[in-house]
């Protein structure tokens, strides 16, 4: 990592879905099952602010003038999600969880909470804004010997789930919309990149001590604010996997270093705003007889080729010290945002069938000197203006170095342009909901019922017989709360319950069994029936398979098992038959023949009778 004079500062924003029984502003349960039944189309328009301008990011989104299509099912969504009914009051349950987490971080709740509307008009919220509210400020997260200040803790509604996105229409599902999310904003600090993961992990576990946060893919997301020049912040949105964090931070550090180098070089070359006066030109004519298949195809489909002059940018657009950090890639991801495939630039040409003569002609038209470069954008004849303008603007931004942007992570640990950073001019009060006071009574009520720490909870697990690995596994699993309930209510060894809820289910899931079909109620019922002796311990796996893969209903399975249940008499008969069959071995080895008999018996009785009962019976019969 080249540090130069710049200091890498990283601020984490953790978004965690809360496992409350209802959504934040209506009484739907976003985690319910249901088939999509309702479809509707909407259009969002940017609103005007008193300052005579709309929010920067919102306006940018609206330039795309997209239609939104929403799909919903009536189990998880109601008129509130469809923006057809005013929000109900804020979920008290979610508020309590958020207050609990605030106190765990020594963050002080505000006296009165005011729900705000944050404009987001990409369609992910049917209203065109996200409802969000600051719950607490201040506090700190302690990670080993580091202490990271907490800036704020807010509670907000999750956005709709994107299903499909194309040039002029986006499709969203409403099931996730308005599921409560807690957002914890940590102060930007100078970190070693590997520390970031530890911080996120510690914070995740701290929240999990409440037993009231959702688990599973997409339930926790990290936004990372990364800045190396101390002024312009890059926000990388929605990092889902912790192990990607350090890659992304490293990538951003390199990308931003590259932009700084470009800026410095441009200053050296004497670039100023006057160099951007040359208008972009339609150069389709140059390519009339081109050999480039790509270009041919575009021109054939009513397309055109625009050339954008990049004064003094020669060799800078393609400059790349680490993979993916070149400016050309940034500009490409910018135009992709408008639905274009990408760009060509002079640093990489001739190539792609575009030949030297064609490049020369473009340079002539643009009056390019030795240090100048160009960018080609290809696309449909109409409507290219906005994308061309965005490229011109991006080049101008190189004068400031790093433009403040919101970026999204790629699977390879890089980042792509997503949209400009929203200004603060996008928040206004949610007037449909009156402010809620956090009373002293509420504060002490929450303070007096804080959960035990992560370490203490692991200790508790060990006390009831779980080993280290299983303790951590059950703590991190989505069945933590269920496990604690079962241990209290059911007389089965905690070890057994924990192993089934973690290892067995994970194994099944690895074998492509869709365990999302099994809910906590089913699991509880299975353990109850194991306790009652109706279900044999060994059958746990098979029952899950029957429910998840064969779509059998648990209550029917249990009825069947009760019918099939062997009486003690039947068991004795079967074992006696086996002893007779193996009488030679029994005669020869006496008590030693137990394991052979046990094996034979279980072949017949597995899943029907608890192994313990079988073994007791065999020993008893062997004695006689």
């Amino acid at each position, binding site marked *: 990592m080249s540090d130069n004079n710049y200091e890498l500062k990283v601020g984490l924003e953790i978004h965690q879905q809360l496992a409350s029984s209802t959504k934040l502003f209506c009484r739907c349960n976003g985690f319910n099952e249901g088939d999509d039944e309702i479809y*509707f*189309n*909407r*259009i*969002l*328009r*940017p*609103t*005007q*602010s*008193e*300052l*005579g301008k709309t929010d920067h990011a*919102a306006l940018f989104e609206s330039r795309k003038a997209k239609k939104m299509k929403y799909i919903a099912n009536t189990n998880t969504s109601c*008129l509130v999600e*469809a*923006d*057809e*009914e*005013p929000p109900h009051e804020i979920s008290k349950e979610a508020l309590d969880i958020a207050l609990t987490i605030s106190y765990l971080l020594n963050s*002080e709740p*505000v*006296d*009165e*909470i*005011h729900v*705000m*509307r*944050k*404009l987001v*008009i990409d369609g992910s919220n*049917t*209203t*065109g*804004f996200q409802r*969000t*509210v*600051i719950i607490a*400020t*201040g506090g700190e997260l302690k990670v080993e010997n580091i202490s990271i200040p907490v800036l*704020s803790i*807010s509670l907000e509604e999750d956005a709709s789930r994107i299903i499909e996105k194309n040039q002029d229409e986006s499709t969203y599902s409403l099931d996730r919309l308005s599921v409560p999310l807690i957002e914890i904003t940590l102060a930007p600090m100078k970190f070693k990149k590997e520390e970031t993961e530890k911080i996120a992990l510690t914070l995740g576990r701290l929240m999990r001590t409440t037993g009231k946060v959702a688990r599973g893919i997409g339930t926790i997301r990290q936004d990372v604010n990364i800045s190396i020049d101390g002024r312009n912040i890059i926000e990388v949105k929605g990092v889902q996997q912790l192990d990607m964090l350090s890659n992304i931070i490293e990538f951003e550090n390199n990308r931003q270093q590259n932009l700084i180098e470009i800026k410095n070089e441009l200053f050296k070359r004497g670039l100023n705003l006057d160099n951007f006066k040359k208008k972009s030109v339609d150069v389709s004519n140059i390519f009339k007889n081109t050999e480039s298949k790509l270009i041919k195809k575009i021109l054939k489909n009513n397309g055109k080729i625009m050339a954008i002059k990049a004064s003094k940018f020669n060799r800078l657009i393609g400059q790349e010290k680490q993979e993916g950090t070149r400016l050309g890639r940034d500009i490409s991801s910018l135009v992709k945002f408008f639905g274009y495939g990408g760009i060509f630039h002079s640093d990489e040409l001739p190539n792609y069938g575009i030949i030297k003569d064609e490049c020369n002609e473009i340079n002539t038209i643009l009056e390019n000197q030795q240090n100048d470069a160009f960018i080609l954008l290809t696309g449909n004849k109409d409507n290219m203006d906005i994308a061309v303008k965005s490229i011109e603007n991006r080049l101008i931004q190189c004068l400031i170095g790093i433009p403040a942007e919101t970026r999204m992570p790629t699977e390879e640990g890089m980042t792509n342009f997503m949209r400009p950073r929203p200004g*603060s*001019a*996008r*928040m*206004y*009060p949610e*007037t449909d909901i*009156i*402010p809620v*006071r956090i009373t002293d009574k509420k504060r002490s009520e929450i303070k007096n019922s804080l959960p035990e720490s992560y370490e203490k909870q692991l200790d508790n697990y060990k006390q009831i017989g779980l080993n280290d690995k299983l303790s951590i596994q059950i703590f991190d699993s989505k069945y933590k709360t269920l496990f604690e309930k079962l241990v209290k209510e059911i007389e089965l060894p905690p070890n057994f319950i924990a192993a089934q809820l973690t290892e067995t289910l994970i194994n099944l899931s690895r074998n492509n069994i869709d365990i999302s079909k099994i809910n906590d109620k089913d699991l509880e019922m299975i353990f109850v029936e194991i306790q009652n002796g109706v279900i044999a311990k060994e059958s746990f796996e098979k029952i899950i398979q029957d429910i998840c893969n064969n779509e059998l209903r648990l209550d029917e399975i249990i009825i069947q098992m009760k019918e099939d249940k062997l009486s003690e008499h039947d068991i004795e008969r079967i074992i006696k038959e086996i002893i007779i069959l193996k009488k030679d071995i029994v005669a020869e080895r006496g008590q030693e023949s137990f394991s052979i008999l046990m094996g034979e018996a279980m072949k017949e009785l597995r899943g029907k009778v608890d192994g313990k009962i079988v073994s007791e019976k065999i020993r008893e019969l062997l004695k006689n």
Partner: protein
Amino acid sequence: MRELSELSGYKNKPLKMLNNAGIQIGDFIKIITKTSEYSGNILPRYEYSNEDFIVIKMSNGYNIGIDSNKILSINKINSGEEPKFIPPSKPNVKESLPKISILGTGGTIASRIDYKTGAVNPAFSAEELYSIIPELSEYANINTELISNIASEQMNPEDWKNIAEQVVKKINDGNQGIVIGHGTDTMAYTSAALSFALVNSPIPIILTGAQRSTDRPSSDASLNMISSVIVASERKLNGVYLAMHSSIEDNEVSIHSGTRVRKNHTSRRDAFQSIGIEPIAIVNQGNVSINNQLSIKKNKFEPKINFDDNVSLLKFHPGFNPKIIEGLIESNVKGIILEGTGLGHVNSKCNNSIKKAIDKGIFVGMTSQCLNGRIKMTVYSAGRDLLDLGVIPLEDMLPETALVKLMWAYGNYKNEEIQKIMTDDIAGEFTERSILGR
């Protein structure tokens, strides 16, 4: 030093604290409490019941309320800036486009947000409308006038008269169509009132509104307004109509007859529905398709814009106390519209009082609380008895429309003409055929 007034919403202790620190709304301040430290711009405190709190907008955009009883110190850091709104310039609108007048009555058609205070301010000039809803410039040369500024539920029959007067003025000014922005709560009453007052209007008069406030990107106002302006400019439909979303989608707007429309949902975009008839027209992607022309007798346009509100609408219900009717008689009411059950019935306990009213010359008309369907008072003896008393059956006229029509009838006609006016179809308030399929 200028002091904060109670208009800022602050009273008692917080007001004193702010004044002592010389703080005005909008100033950037720092507050230290027993547990925390906050800084932000001070906001006015609206409508909230608890007087102890001070509201600030922090620099991250969030508002919070701080309990003044916990404040240790409060200091002004910087003065606030007044928001400077630069009105957009008027776009080039083709002179050849139809001249359309947009009248505001109080509901907001478009608005701007003051992100500093969170206030939502109505935007109403033609320039502002063009800038917020640019599509309008493709269809019409608009002029705007705010004729009143009252919430829909505060509207009275004298306001209907005022609107009707203004409409007549705009017709005389040569406008080719008129669009009226209206709060949705009583919009259907106003549409009925204007339907009678301005019967035989030579131009389209379209009422429209919004079920989602105009400050939100998802507001239904823009599509409703665009569709209304299109219908107003096309001159395919003369008369009074109400234009609102056909469904919860942003693609289609229904044009309802002014006398047969009702708000049937508290919050949905498609709250307004035509009862007993199909919507008169549908506007989809800018195209108007006409379903169903009203067959109103064409007469000269002679506005009759008076209303007499000394009439009443009574909803019958089990346990209804006939003394309510007696009370109306004593208060010298001129007419009563009954909203009876089913085909047009009330409990026979009411019959004496009803007879007293009719004997006194009070008009008593019957409508049905079923809303859908026609009354028929000859089917059961309860109905026949009421007919014998002189109760006038009002076919399938909607109860609210019947009430408005009765106000209009007494406002413009002599007592002996009332019964004929109430039973004649004047503005499409009756249908002759009850359509199948509903």
